[in-house]
């Protein structure tokens, strides 16, 4: 007996984390996933989720305590109804979808005089604010791969959140001027000994919420060669002195920072202090810093919003013009103060990720949730809009954590008869424009 299988290999861009690995290879057998090469467990899971049964399959509209299934056109019509009758809708999410969808979202928000915010506001929003304060000395990841002899991870653990970061771009990568990791040194700075910390040449433990002080102390040591008189008690000074020595010896250094800096203590001041330190270090040698962005296209959301409106997130169109003021136009502030009467979530799960005190305020609000997967938000929604998984079942453009644009590819044809985020939003935009 002869078995004929129809196998092809397709190249994929992993739509999971900010590493946006574009070397993933998926082998398809008769259109189904047979194997996945080069992806980490997270990427593998995401690509495999195309075949999972845990998906949003139907367009649903709430009716009493139940949700009833409707056609796509009815769902679009009802979505347009709710959006148009809202006083100040907020359109939130956008980090797990394509730039094409993000652009449409901004146009919808503009027409509705609503707010467009993305998940940046609760992850690296403070870094964007600090960039506007003082600017960021940065580079693409290839610069690190080819040149960096000292790599610092601050408040981020790539082994858990960006599993291929080491191998592809940093500590374990091979580059033109640094051919292997014996020639690189790594420092990890964190509040606890993470898995990455165990691999580091030097691990520096800091007390929670003290990063600002630690950065300032390090800055002082580098500038004056000795610690300031009033020493920070939150860190071992000898550790910092040793780190300063390694830092000064480096030819090309990089600081990768994560939520451990953006989400703690003084928020954007941490980043302001970090950028200031990096500027200082450029007097001695070359130093850059790169944010460890979480979702695969959160960087794209910031880029698209910046060129469309001038602002990277939290764009409020209620006066007809884009207005931006994090702390006022950001999702948690708007929801907490009951400023919005409708929440439309696209490719995100605000109810599952925002602070409890904020989530409790959404009770009674109209909610529209567009997502391939069930989440606490789709659960609570008045309208559920299922979509194809961007980057697996449909394509588009995304931006890596360092701002490099990379095409997303449809890996396989979905067994589900659904639209992409982009197609669905286009219908909604058309419907709204027409009704206006």
């Amino acid at each position: 007996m002869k078995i004929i299988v129809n196998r092809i290999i397709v190249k994929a861009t992993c739509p999971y984390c900010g590493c946006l690995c574009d070397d993933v290879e998926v082998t398809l057998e008769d259109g189904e996933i047979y194997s996945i090469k080069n992806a980490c467990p997270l990427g593998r899971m995401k690509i495999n989720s195309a075949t999972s049964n845990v998906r949003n399959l139907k367009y649903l509209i709430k009716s009493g305590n139940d949700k009833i299934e409707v056609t796509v056109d009815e769902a679009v019509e009802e979505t347009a109804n709710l959006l148009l009758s809202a006083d100040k809708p907020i359109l939130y999410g956008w980090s797990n979808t394509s730039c094409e969808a993000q652009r449409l979202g901004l146009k919808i928000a503009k027409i509705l005089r609503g707010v467009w915010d993305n998940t940046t506001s609760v992850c690296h929003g403070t870094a964007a604010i600090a960039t506007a304060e003082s600017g960021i000395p940065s580079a693409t990841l290839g610069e690190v791969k080819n040149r960096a002899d000292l790599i610092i991870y601050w408040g981020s653990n790539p082994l858990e959140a960006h599993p291929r970061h080491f191998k592809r771009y940093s500590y374990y990568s091979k580059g033109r001027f640094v051919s292997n990791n014996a020639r690189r040194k790594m420092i990890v700075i964190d509040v606890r000994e993470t898995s990455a910390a165990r691999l580091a040449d030097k691990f520096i433990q800091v007390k929670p919420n003290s990063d600002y002080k630690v950065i300032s102390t390090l800055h002082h040591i580098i500038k004056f060669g000795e610690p300031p008189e009033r020493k920070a008690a939150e860190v071992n000074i000898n550790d910092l002195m040793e780190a300063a020595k390694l830092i000064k010896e480096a030819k090309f250094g990089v600081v990768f920072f994560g939520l451990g800096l953006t989400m703690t203590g003084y928020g954007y001041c941490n980043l302001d202090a970090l950028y200031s330190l990096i500027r200082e270090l450029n007097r001695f040698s070359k130093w850059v810093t790169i944010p460890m962005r979480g979702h695969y296209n959160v960087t794209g959301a910031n880029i698209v919003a910046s060129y469309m409106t001038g602002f990277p997130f939290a764009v409020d169109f209620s006066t007809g013009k884009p207005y931006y003021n994090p702390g006022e136009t950001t999702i948690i502030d708007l929801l907490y103060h009951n400023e919005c009467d409708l929440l439309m979530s696209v490719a995100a799960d605000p109810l599952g990720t925002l602070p409890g005190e904020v989530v409790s305020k959404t009770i009674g609000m109209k909610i529209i949730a567009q997502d391939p997967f069930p989440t606490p938000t789709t659960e609570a929604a008045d309208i559920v809009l299922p979509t194809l998984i961007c980057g697996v079942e449909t394509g588009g453009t995304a931006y890596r954590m360092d701002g490099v644009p990379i095409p997303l590819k449809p890996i396989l044809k979905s067994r589900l008869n659904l639209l992409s985020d982009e197609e669905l939003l286009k219908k909604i935009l058309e419907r709204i424009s027409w009704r206006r």
Partner: protein
Amino acid sequence: MDILIENGVFVERIKGRDPIVINAERKVILPGGVDLHSHFAGSKVTLGRLLRPEEHRLRHQFGNSGNHIGTGWATPTPFLCGYLYSKLGYAKIVEPAVPPLKARHTHEEMRGIPYMDKMSLLLLGNSWIIMDLIAQKRLKLLEKYVLWVLWASKTYGIKLVAPGSGEAWAWGKSITHIDDEIPNFSITPKDIIYNLARVNKEIGLKTPVHLHTNNLGSPGNYQTTIDSLKTVENLGLRDGDSPFIIHLVHAQFSSYKGDSWKTFSSGSEEVAAYINSNSHVSFDLGQIIFSNTTTMTADGAWQYNLYRLTGGKWINNDVENETASGIVPYTFKRKNYVNAIQWAVGLELALLVKDPWKLAVTTDHPNGGVFTSYPVIIAWLMNKKFRERTIEKINSKAKHIIILPSIDREYTLFETVIVTRSAPARIMGVKDGATIGIGKEANLAIYDLGDPERDLGENPVKLIKGLSSANYNIKNGLIVMKNGVPVQDFNGVTYYSGGVNESEELTELVDYYFKEYYTVEKENYIVQKGEVMHPVNVLEEVFK
């Protein structure tokens, strides 16, 4: 006299019925303007937006018009950019600094710019592949690679920004002399300038190599500038519309004497003299406007210096294996000695170079100022008294050492048409797009500049007002703008060059760099035609 347009071109007789008639009596009718150097789209423009939320509040547009969004002074959003250019009477614009790795980003923004035809220039002055090929003397392969990378990024021409210095800046160093060796590459900036100018000629690109000189912005750099231009003297002229072998971008920033900020002075006479006595050089002004702006360039080392000078905000963003870049906000002040001289240098160059066909008016938007200031530059060029009024207000020490007051030349209206339309179109190799002639692309701007019987330069206020807002902008035969109000949606074409050369040697070369040094796959580096707004390749697509 009637000008007839049908199907997007000028015609002798109209065949269709009921044509639209515009009465342009006593108005000035010009071909659509061409801006050959303006940073309006792409990665660093967006980083500039990110750096300066305060700047976007200076200009808002389209508050109530549907889904169009317009903000930004130095970095207007794409829709606003197209709108402002169209209002100014322009038809074609060139984004002059695209890092190949981020070309997709530039196209993404350019797709959103309505009304304009677009071109872009590719940053190749610090490319590893190019520097390696020059060092290895594989010059035939270099030609093939340049064609390939232009094709891959869907860009139009070659841009060199402080060649070699970007690579040095990647280590935090800089190169101050064009005969200095580039770290790790055993070649010099001069080698890059010479070889790429030669390749450019060989492969028949439509525009010369555009050069941002080494030492840009620094006192005494005029000598580097002249040395760089001399490097390519013996290459002869190019075939085709644009004979020049090299285009000196924003020459103002490269024409300084002195050896410190204290002794800083104008080098315009020397640079203008060189350009007057040689036929292989074209240039654009890079005129500064006294105002606040956001400077952005691939010259990372210079931006770091500027940041150290201002002590303000600074973004650096180097792109692997290709280029550096930096962004710094800056205010050009009348009372600042250096700024006042910079202002004079731009105008001196425009007035001292005799042949208007060699130059184009630019501000190096947004580096010297924003492009909406072009009418003011025209007024300065056309009216000596108007210049004097500005000179009165500048730094008094500068006032006494500049030569501008001694220059009597005033541009005629005809000459201003050359430096804003015909010359830049010719330099870019798109002459037909800026010519009123039968069969040519119908791009027109109609202005009300006052009584055409009188000298239009006489009343600079009226001139500036008139030029700032065209009564009509007609693009490819369609009225797209009327008195500053968009009439209909229209997207222009995107010109690009380059082609795929079926060569194993080339594939091997490119594959090697992607495997070893880049962090993306080759297939994702290539911008597909579908990602570009109305792509038009001006060269053959495939070479054998």
